[in-house]
C-alpha cells in the first residue's frame, strides 16, 4: 500500500515536470510559428491600401507599375509616360482631393453623389492621367483602366532602400536601412564594448585582489539588471548632449549614441562570460608558464587568453545578440531616421525600435502590421543565427577538451 502511494507520487511529479517542459517548448514553437505566419502575409499583398485603385486612361499602354515607379510618379520624379514604356505624354496626377480643381461643388452634388461619374468623365478626357481613389467612387459604367500593382516581393522587401510603410498611394517597404541601422549600431557597440570588457575581465580574473573582485563583480552583474529604459534615459540626458558637443552636430541623437549605450549594456555579458572562461584556465597551466620565467602579462597573453578564447568569443557574440535585440534604449537615443547610415554620426533606426514605435499605430491585420511582423522575422533570424554561432563555438571548445 505504502509503496503504491510512493510510486504514484513519483509518477505524478514526473508528469508535472514533463508537462512543464512540453508547455514551454510548445509555447516557443507557437510564438515562432505565429511570427512567421503573420510576417509572411506581407508578401501576399499589394503595397496599396485596401479598397484603393490606381487608374489610367483606357488608351494608356502601360499595364503594370512597380511600387517604386508609382512613388516616383507621385513624387514628380517621373513626369512623362514614355519613361514608363508608354507614349510620349505628360503625366497628370490626380488624388481625390484634386477634384475641386476640375469640377464645382454644385456639379458634384451636395453629398458628392455625382463624384463617381465625374471621375470617370475626367479619366476619359485626360489621356495622361493617373488617378488614385477609393473603389467606392468606381461608377457602374467605369471606363478607365486599373493598373496592376505587383505584390510585395521578398527581394524588394530586403533590398529596398526606403521605409515609408504608410505612404500613399504606394507604401514603400524597403527594410535595408533598418537592417543596416541595426547592424551598424550593434557593430559600433561591440567595437567599443569588446576591448573594455576584455580588459575588465582580465583585470577581474587575473590581477584584482580577492577583495576587489568580490566587490566589483556583483557591481558589474548589477549593471545587467538595470532596466533598459533607464539606460535610454541616461543616454538621452548624458551621452546624446556629449556627442552633440564633441562633434559639433546639429543633433546628438546618432548611431554613435546608440552604440555607446548598447556597449554599456553589453559589458556585463561580455565581462562575466569571459571572466568565467579565464578563471577556468587550469591553475597548472598558469603555474607552468610562470615557472618558466614568463611574466604575468605574458602568461595572460600566451596561456590564459588562448585557453579561454572560445569563452571570450561566446561572451562577445552574446553581447552582440543583446545589442541587436535591444529596443527601448536604442529607440530613445538614435534619432530613428530610416536612412542608410554612412557614418556613425548620423541618426539611424533599428529593427526593434521600428517595431516598437510603429506597431501601435499600424491597423491590426493591415499591410503595415504584417510588414512589422516580417521585420520581427528578420530580427529573429539574425539573433537565431547568433545563438547558433555561440552553440557552435562552445561545442567546438567542448570537443577540443575531450
Amino acid at each position, binding site marked *: 500500500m505504502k509503496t503504491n502511494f510512493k510510486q504514484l507520487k513519483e509518477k505524478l511529479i514526473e508528469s508535472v515536470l514533463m508537462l512543464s517542459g512540453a508547455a514551454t517548448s510548445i509555447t516557443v514553437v507557437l510564438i515562432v510559428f505565429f511570427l512567421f505566419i503573420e510576417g509572411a502575409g506581407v508578401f501576399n499583398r499589394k503595397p496599396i491600401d485596401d479598397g484603393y485603385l490606381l487608374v489610367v486612361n483606357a488608351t494608356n499602354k502601360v499595364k503594370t507599375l512597380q511600387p517604386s515607379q508609382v512613388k516616383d510618379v507621385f513624387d514628380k520624379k517621373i513626369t512623362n509616360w514614355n519613361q514608363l514604356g508608354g507614349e510620349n505624354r505628360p503625366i497628370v496626377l490626380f488624388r481625390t482631393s484634386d477634384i475641386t480643381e476640375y469640377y464645382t461643388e454644385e456639379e458634384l452634388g451636395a453629398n458628392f453623389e455625382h463624384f463617381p461619374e465625374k471621375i470617370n468623365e475626367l479619366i476619359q478626357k485626360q489621356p495622361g492621367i493617373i488617378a488614385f481613389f477609393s473603389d467606392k467612387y468606381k461608377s457602374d459604367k467605369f471606363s478607365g483602366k486599373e493598373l496592376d500593382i505587383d505584390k510585395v516581393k521578398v527581394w524588394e522587401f530586403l533590398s529596398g532602400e526606403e521605409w515609408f510603410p504608410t505612404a500613399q498611394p504606394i507604401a514603400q517597404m524597403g527594410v535595408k536601412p533598418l537592417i543596416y541601422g541595426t547592424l551598424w549600431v550593434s557593430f559600433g557597440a561591440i567595437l567599443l564594448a569588446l576591448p573594455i570588457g576584455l580588459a575588465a575581465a582580465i583585470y577581474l580574473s587575473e590581477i584584482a585582489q*580577492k577583495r576587489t573582485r568580490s566587490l566589483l563583480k556583483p557591481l558589474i552583474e548589477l549593471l545587467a539588471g538595470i532596466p533598459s529604459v533607464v539606460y535610454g534615459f541616461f543616454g538621452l540626458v548624458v551621452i546624446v548632449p556629449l556627442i552633440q558637443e564633441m562633434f559639433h552636430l546639429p543633433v546628438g541623437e546618432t548611431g554613435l549614441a546608440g552604440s555607446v549605450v548598447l556597449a554599456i549594456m553589453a559589458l556585463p555579458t561580455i565581462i562575466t562570460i569571459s571572466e568565467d572562461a579565464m578563471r577556468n584556465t587550469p591553475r597548472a*597551466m598558469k603555474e607552468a608558464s*610562470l*615557472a618558466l*620565467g*614568463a*611574466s604575468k602579462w*605574458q602568461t595572460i597573453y600566451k*596561456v590564459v587568453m588562448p*585557453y579561454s578564447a572560445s569563452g571570450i568569443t561566446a561572451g562577445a557574440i552574446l553581447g552582440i545578440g543583446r545589442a541587436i535585440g535591444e529596443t527601448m534604449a536604442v529607440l530613445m537615443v538614435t534619432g530613428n531616421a530610416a536612412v542608410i547610415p554612412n557614418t556613425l554620426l548620423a541618426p539611424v533606426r533599428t529593427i526593434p525600435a521600428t517595431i516598437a514605435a510603429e506597431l501601435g499605430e499600424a491597423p491590426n491585420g493591415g499591410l503595415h502590421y504584417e510588414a512589422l511582423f516580417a521585420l520581427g522575422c528578420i530580427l529573429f533570424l539574425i539573433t537565431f543565427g547568433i545563438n547558433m554561432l555561440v552553440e557552435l563555438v562552445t561545442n567546438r571548445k567542448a570537443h577540443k577538451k575531450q
Partner: protein
Amino acid sequence: MHKIESKNVNFFYGETQALHDISLSMKENTVTALIGPSGCGKSTYLRLLNRMNDLIDNTRMEGSILIDQKDIYQKNTNVDDLRKNVGMVFQKPNPFPKTIYENVAYGLRVNGVEDKNIIEERVITSIEQVALWDEVKDKLKKSAFELSGGQQQRLCIARALAIQPSVLLMDEPTSALDPISTSKVEELVHELKKKYTIVIVTHNMQQAARVSDNTAFFYMGKLIECDKTKTIFTKPAIQQTEDYITGRFG
C-alpha cells in the same frame, strides 16, 4: 659551498603557520629528496625556492633563502629571472595546449629568444636530454596532448631544461605515472644530476632512496632530520624518522 641555503624560514597561510624555522642547505649537483606525510610542508617549502607561493593570496614568509649566495626574497629580486634559473616540474604533467615543439620553445620565447636557429637547437637538445627524442621526432608539430602521461611529464622536464636553469625543483613528478614511466623519470634524474641541482618532493620511500643523495624528513611543518640518504634510511638519528620510513605512521 651551498647552492641553496635557507635560514630560519617560517611561512604562513593567513594565520596558519605552515613551516616552522626551516634551515636547510643543498650542495651543487646533488639530489635532495623531501619526504614526509601529506600536509607536512614539503611542497610548500619547495615552492618557496622559486617563489611560486607568491601567487597565493594572503601568505607571508619570514627568514631568508639564498640561491648562489643571493637572497631571493630581497625586494629588488627579479622573480622572472629567478624562475628562469630555478626550473620546476609539477605533480601532474601540465603541457600547454600547443604543439610538442612549441611547448619546449615557450620558455625561450617568453624570455626573449627570437633567433629561430637557437630555439630549434635548444628544443632538440632539451628533448634529447630527457630521452624523448626518438619517440617524438616525427611529430613535433602535433599537439602535446597526444603523448602518453609519462611522455608528457618528460616533455615538461624538457620544457623546464630548455631555458637552462641551474636548479630543478620536482614536485612529486612521478605520482601520476605508471611504473615504467616512473623508472624512466628516475633514470633521468640520475643523468640530470651532473648538470643541475635537484630538489625532489616524493611520497615514495623507495624513490627517495633510489634517486637522492640527501634526504630531508618533514613533519607538521618542521624539518625533523636531514642527512645523507643512506644514513636516513639505515640509521636515522631520530625515532620519528625511523617510524615514518618503516611505515609505522604517515
